[in-house]
């Protein structure tokens, strides 16, 4: 790794940290712009009780002081404060609880999408304009134009309600099958299309012709020359894919009642649990920013032809 690469990586890391700070700041001030405050929904709270509650959660202090306290406690202790609606639970406990399920779900979905996507994509590219290719392209086009919540609801209607193959409730292991399929279909279709077009591009390159002319076997050409190079664009997609799976999981977990972080987030919005909304937004945002960072850096490191600027 040379000087230029290092300085690029450093610059990207600083930029990512700055982005995370912007997210925290926006989230904090947006949440505090809400009129009424978090205790409005609870019935029959006297003025003195509201005052006492506000004092307990430090809400009577000036806004900038609250902001500073919040920021420092996140950075130093990973402390997002207590949840307002789920008494006795801290935000970070709820988040890490939900994360266990969600990360499992997301990782399996991502792996499934990557493996199936690259295999189907290369398959389609190698049989270009044959029936297999056309079928794959039509199906993937349909999948990429279907929002995840539509896909999730339709799969639920078909496999859980009509056919009863899988349970509709996602709290058991068998119930996680449908959410995983729902989450992986869109990125799988996207990766298939990406791999196909980049494979076709690579197969037209001079070095493939050279390899053929030298008498390299078809399998070696595909695996040693074509596939390796055509997977480079797929790496760039990994960051956005994680972001897509994260946001997709918000609705998918809602549809299948999966006890993950996405459902906690949506419930915190409807329940106006401000610390939980803030905490979840920040954690998910950090996840997305870090994933984008990694895939960007990986992309530049893997392909030496890409220049740094």
């Amino acid at each position, binding site marked *: 790794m040379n000087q230029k690469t290092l300085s690029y990586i450093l610059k990207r890391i600083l*930029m*990512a940290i*700055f*982005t995370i700070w*912007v*997210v925290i700041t*926006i*989230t904090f001030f*947006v*949440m505090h*712009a*809400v*009129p*009424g405050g978090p205790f409005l929904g609870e019935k029959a709270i006297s003025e003195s009780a509201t005052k006492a509650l506000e004092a307990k959660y430090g809400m009577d202090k000036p806004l900038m002081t609250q902001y500073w306290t919040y920021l420092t406690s996140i950075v130093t202790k990973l402390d997002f404060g207590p949840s307002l609606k789920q008494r006795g639970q801290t935000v970070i406990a709820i988040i890490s609880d939900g994360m266990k399920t969600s990360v499992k779900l997301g990782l399996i979905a991502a792996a499934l999408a990557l493996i199936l996507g690259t295999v189907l994509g290369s398959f389609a590219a190698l049989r270009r304009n044959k029936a297999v290719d056309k079928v794959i392209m039509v199906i993937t*086009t*349909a999948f990429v*134009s*279907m*929002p995840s*919540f*539509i896909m999730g*609801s*339709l799969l*639920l*209607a078909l496999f859980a*309600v*009509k056919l009863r193959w899988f349970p509709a409730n996602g709290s058991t292991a068998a119930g996680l099958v449908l959410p995983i399929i729902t989450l992986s279909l869109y990125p799988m279709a996207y990766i298939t299309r990406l791999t196909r077009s980049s494979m076709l591009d690579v197969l037209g390159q001079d070095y493939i012709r050279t390899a053929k002319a030298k008498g390299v076997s078809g399998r070696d050409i595909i695996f040693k020359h074509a596939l390796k190079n055509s997977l480079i664009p797929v790496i760039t997609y990994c960051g956005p894919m994680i*972001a897509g799976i*994260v*946001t997709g999981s*918000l*609705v998918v977990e*809602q*549809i299948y009642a999966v006890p993950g972080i996405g459902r906690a*987030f*949506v419930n915190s*919005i*409807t329940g106006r649990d401000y610390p939980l*909304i803030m905490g979840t*937004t920040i954690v*998910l*945002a950090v996840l*997305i*920013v870090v994933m*984008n960072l990694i895939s960007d850096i990986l992309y530049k490191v893997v392909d030496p032809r890409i220049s740094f600027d």
Partner: protein
Amino acid sequence: MKIEPMKLSMHVNLDEFIPATNEDKEYLVRMRPSTTFFKDGMKRLKKNKIAMTAIIILIVIVLACIIVPAVWPYKYDQMLGVNPGSAVDPSFANLHPFQLGTTEKKLAAAGQFVFPHIFGTDDSGRDYFIRVVYGTRISLLVGFFASLIVLVIGLLVGSIAGYCGGKVDMVLMRIVDIIYSLPDTLMIILLASVLKLTLGTAIEGTVFEKLGSNMISLFIVFGALYWVSMARLIRGQILSLKEQEYVLAAQTSGAKGGWIIKKHMIPNCISVIIISTALQIPSAIFTESYLSFLGLGVNAPMPSLGSLASDALNGLSSYTYRLVVPAVIISLIVLSLNLFGDGLRDAFDPKLNA
């Protein structure tokens, strides 16, 4: 050094001065009218069968959204079982397709024509077909206006950054970079959930009240977050166009700024701008339905395709079609718009034709 004597004689080939024969003149006859960039693109577009199918589907859907609500005998928020002065008739709720409520059955038995409920009714006794049509209309309108907002803001910021250059450009582009790296869906959910609460009182009594606070917050969120890629695109276009040889050539031959903008800049970047605006519409529809699905979209009783799909989840086992209908329409719209946008790009982007 020997100096050559100056040659004064002219070598003229007299053959070149013979009047042209009729045969020669035929070469100069215009065989067909000269084609413009627009005509050329349209010709290519018309040949693209997929894009033409997509646009026909879109036209049918748009026409249906405009015409059907005007002629349909039911309203989208009309609860058929509820009549002033009499008890609520529960027989109108949750009708299956082509079923009728009790009072309607009597009318039909008496030989009167009763307009059928093609998709039945929902759990409040509202005709589901008209709700789907109305929801499609809302979704399309949101998509269209959100893209327009994105276009206007992006055009403004992008062209300012491109023209001014220097420090203005740098500051604007850093802002764009930061917004671009924000996780957009999370920010949208956050802003939409907060704006929904804050806007409710702020817009009371104004024209915006009719639209509903959710809709307004949707537009604000779009305006605040989605303009960045458009601004980047337009800035890039202007920067690259400024450097083109033909702009320099026009300048050296004395063309004024206005002429260059009218004759060179606009024709060369308008297609790119229109195409990316067209491709913005499906993503706006996508986002709107996503938010409506989470309950952050349109205000009830106004339907949108997302909220219809979300409501349908409650009665999934007995009324699956209530989910399938909006799902199919939304996928059809997004798919057609994407395919048509791709067709437009193939037909009108001259850089791709090479």
